[in-house]
């Protein structure tokens, strides 16, 4: 008793050490995250090329979103919207396949009645493509699907007589996009499967047992038990995939022969990189495009979140309090 009475008087604050220990992170965070973020905002209001240091107000945004009378303005607007269109196409294409596949696998692998053996092994196998760097994956697919008759697939098809001339798998608008969608799904489905599986494993088996005793079918259990309880994880997967998808860069950027990026694969992030990285520094376009992408991601994220969370949930919590 005595001890506890004395303690408050003698209390030494160790908080400052705590702050000191976490300080490096926040310093690094401010330097590498906050400053670039603010600077991007500033840059988006500055010019391009020779006028890179001058304030131009909303001109970059205006050109990107609405174009203008000059050729440059229209050209930038065109390219930006094309790149945004490409981003959406590539994201939807890879996300739908990826989600369906992952959900299916996750349900199968976690189903107590099927009891698949060697789940650990399959998890590793499914996750493996994600470990390979994007550069290697792109290199591999370039070799497989090379445009000319020297590409592996092309040479096979030509040898079998299925093709008369080499098919430009990468340069062709849709086959190129399908390749990117396939690579992205292939690289990321393992990751998504693991996330969904962990969600499903968190569901109380007793519920399934009760359901099966009452005679409900697998389909029924999936839609009535698994999906509703999985919703938070599901939303998390959708939102992270959306953010990742809108920033899709590496594969679309790498998947081309010769020296130029394929215009049909140019995503928003590739657009940003392209203009940022030229000798005539077009920082303004890049920064403005980054901000537009940022706002878009935030808005879409919020919408998805709102649509999918139970609107009565906050009220319940309040009532409980």
């Amino acid at each position, binding site marked *: 008793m005595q001890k506890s009475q004395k303690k408050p008087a003698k209390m030494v604050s160790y908080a400052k050490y705590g702050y000191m220990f976490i300080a490096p992170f926040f310093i690094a965070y401010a330097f590498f995250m906050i400053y670039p973020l603010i600077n991007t905002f500033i840059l988006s209001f500055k010019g391009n090329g020779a006028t890179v240091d001058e304030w131009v107000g909303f001109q970059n945004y205006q050109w990107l979103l609405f174009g203008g009378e000059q*050729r440059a303005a229209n050209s930038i607007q065109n390219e930006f919207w094309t790149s945004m269109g490409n981003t959406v196409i590539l994201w939807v294409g890879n996300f739908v396949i990826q989600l369906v596949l992952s959900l299916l696998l996750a349900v199968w692998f976690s189903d107590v009645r099927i009891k698949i053996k060697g789940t650990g092994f399959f998890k590793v196998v499914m996750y493996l493509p994600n470990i390979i760097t994007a550069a290697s994956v792109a290199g591999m697919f370039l070799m497989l699907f090379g*445009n*000319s008759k020297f590409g592996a697939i092309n040479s096979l098809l030509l040898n079998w007589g299925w093709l008369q001339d080499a098919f430009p798998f990468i340069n062709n608008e849709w086959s190129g996009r399908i390749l990117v969608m396939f690579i992205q799904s292939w690289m990321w489905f393992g990751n998504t499967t693991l996330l969904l599986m962990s969600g499903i494993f968190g569901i109380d088996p007793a519920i399934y047992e009760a359901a099966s005793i009452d005679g409900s079918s697998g389909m029924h259990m999936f839609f009535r038990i698994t999906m509703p309880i999985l919703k938070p994880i599901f939303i998390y997967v959708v939102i992270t995939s959306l953010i990742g998808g809108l920033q899709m860069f590496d594969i679309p950027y790498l998947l081309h022969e010769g020296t130029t990026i394929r215009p049909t694969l140019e995503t928003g992030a590739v657009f940003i990189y392209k203009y940022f990285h030229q000798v005539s520094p077009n920082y303004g376009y890049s920064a403005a495009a980054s901000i537009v992408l940022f706002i878009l991601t935030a808005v879409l994220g919020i919408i998805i979140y709102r649509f999918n969370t139970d609107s009565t949930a906050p009220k319940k919590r309040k009532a409980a309090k």
Partner: protein
Amino acid sequence: MKKKLLALLLASAMVLSVAGCSDETPTDNGGNEGDGTTSAPANSDGSEDTTEGAATPSGEDDGVLTIVTWGSNSDVVNMKKIFCENTGVAEDKVQIVTQGDNGEGGRDQIVQYLKGDGDADIITLEADWILSYINDDTLTAPLSDIGISEGDLKNPYSYTVAIGKDESGTLKGVSFQAAPGGFLYRSDLAEQYLGVKSPEEMQEKVKDWATFQATAKELYDASNGATSLQATEGGLWQVYQYNRTQAWVVDGALVMDNAADFYDIAKTFNDEKYLANVPQWDPAWYAAIQDGTALGDFVPTWGLTAAADSILSNMTGGEGGKAYGKMAMCQGPNGYCWGGTWLGIAAKHNTDDLAAQFIKYFTCDDDGMRAYTLGTNDFCNNSTVMKAIVDEKVNSNPQLTDGQDQFQILMDQADAINMDGKITKYDSVIKGHFNDSVNGYLDGTYATKDDAINAFKDAVAASFPDLVVE
């Protein structure tokens, strides 16, 4: 046990990362042994400068010559070797820093490097974008800073000197090579399909564009559609663009000049299969030559060197390769000049004496330039030395049929090169956009020539907001 292991791991990670940092600094102890090539007294006794090297202030000699170049530039690697062997400068006194993996990568990334903290003395600059560097005093310094003037250069080809000057006429870049080019082709296939037995006979077959096309047709028919005469659209353009009468940009406005006609030429070539249309700088390019899909391509001097990654070495497959000793050179329909690398001085140069010695060795020293040419098969920027090498018949390229001397073919063209007022700082980017739009026209992305030209102009306008593009 686990904790101990973890602690050990973390500790070693920390030590390694610290070591990694100090490795990045261009100065290492090798710079202090001083064999007479450094002039800085501060360094002659130096021992404590691992820290000093981290941010060597400009103007202070760090004893190590840093050459900034891009990954695929094998010229510089060979130059370092030859320079160190013949002058006795220790190899660790010359370090090569690479930025970007090819010329375009170098164009975009060397500027970032120069704006950073890294050490830089000599930088390599490509013809297509040298002007954007030498006209910026925050990036490059005049060669007079390290004591090299125009008069010191030994018999340079005049176009190389003209390109190396900035807007005010100050010499800021010198080239160690001249870059005339010719037509490189498979001599065995030429004999088989065209009955051509020597480079002279081949030249007759490609002496002008009309003959070139007729030969292409003959070849395509004789080989039953297996072999096209020309491999790449990019190579064709390099030769064609030499006939431009104006630069890409005149008075701040884009000038098409003869470029519009090239869409038709390329289309004809592609439709008639005179063109194999494989992408440049791609494994398919080299494969097309090796398996006879294409008879040849236009290649300049720097693509004909002995380096393992030169265009020629890639096409022949190197010693024992499929086309080794089965290729030959002729002049082609018209002479041209393609690219070339210049040596410039970074604004933050600090190892002046060694830098001067290096540059002089390859541009002002007959013996050095001769050693470079004979050692690498590159075409040095010294007309007298080149003439002597051709006259003495001392050069023989083992990758070419019967050890043909490519210099003999390219000699006259080197004298004739005139690029006056035809290069701009925009060239590299514009050339990229142009070839994209031509290829887009060939593969059907753009339905008409006008669409393709429009797309090209759009791309240029977007890249250079300062230019007038009508």
